[in-house]
């Protein structure tokens, strides 16, 4: 999984922990805290409607095509599991059914092919 190349320095680690904590909070607080209940322009709202449906697939696509667990090599069981998850999610509009089907497909694929 994680290639341990170098010892992590304590100073660097705590800088990252505190910086990431503060930075993540500011990213999440930014609009909620600064804009409050003022109305946003229609075009901004129109774009924000597609945040989840755009950013999450953009985040997942490389994880599916080049999984870290196989050092970035395309992996049939993982690709199959991803397709099954999306297909079941679309067919039944049910998150938990999609997760269970995807997990079952992954383990079946790893058992048969891995």
């Amino acid at each position, binding site marked *: 999984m994680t290639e341990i*190349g170098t010892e992590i320095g304590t100073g660097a680690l705590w800088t990252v922990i505190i910086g990431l904590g503060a930075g993540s909070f500011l990213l999440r*607080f930014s*609009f909620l*805290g600064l804009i409050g209940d003022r109305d946003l322009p229609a075009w901004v709202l129109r774009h924000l409607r*597609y945040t989840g449906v755009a950013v999450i697939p953009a985040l997942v*696509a490389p994880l599916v095509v080049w999984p870290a667990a196989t050092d970035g090599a395309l992996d049939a069981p993982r690709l199959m599991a991803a397709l099954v998850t999306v297909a079941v999610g679309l067919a039944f509009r049910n998150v938990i059914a999609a997760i269970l089907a995807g997990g079952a497909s992954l383990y079946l694929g790893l058992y048969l092919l891995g």
Partner: protein
Amino acid sequence: MNTKTTKSPYWQGMAAGAPFVLVIVPFSVLFGVVATEAGLSVFETMVMTTLVIAGAAQFTAVQLLSEGAPTLIVLATALAVNLRMAMYSASLTPHLGAAPVRHKALIAWLMVDQAYACASLAYERNPGWSVAQKASFYFGTVSLIVPLWCAFTFVGAVLGEAIPPEFALDFAVPITFLAMMGPMLRTRAHMAAAVVAITVSLVLAFLPYSIGVLVGGLAGMIAGAEVERQMARRGMVI
């Protein structure tokens, strides 16, 4: 919904968040395992996980730290992975912007993908909810997810290397996110957003520091908004 009390949305939120427990548990165990394998102590792992509460960004940070990347690069990359949270914040602002600052600070600290997805779906379905009811629903969705995230990170950190890679816990993250796509892809505009986002993200995957993910996400948002605008102009019902 058939009741106007603020208690009801809280329990609805908890019910909406409950299924994610099944994926949060393996995901947080995995983070605990990965972090301690990378050389973090149990204490350091727990401080990071409770302060940050962001799966993908935490994995990114630990991965880069163990590769010996410069501190600034580690921070910039992990925050870039988390940049979508600013978009979630903006997207929730019309619903929760009028809440008291202490509630908004708590909402911000407890923001995870699953809570955002549940909340934005519920707010669309319940336009009559007050700000207090909307905040209640949000706190309901995170009240199982976040404590379990921290508890099972601890379990993973203590178990350490006992979990063999054959369990393929690495794929818990993609499966969770992909399972959320089905209910989200409600219109042609949503489909267009997802397809463009995936394409651009994969094409730009060679760029360092998750830039491809950011550009792909933005391109998807623009595509979704543009398809919605075109459909509205032709008088089609979205």
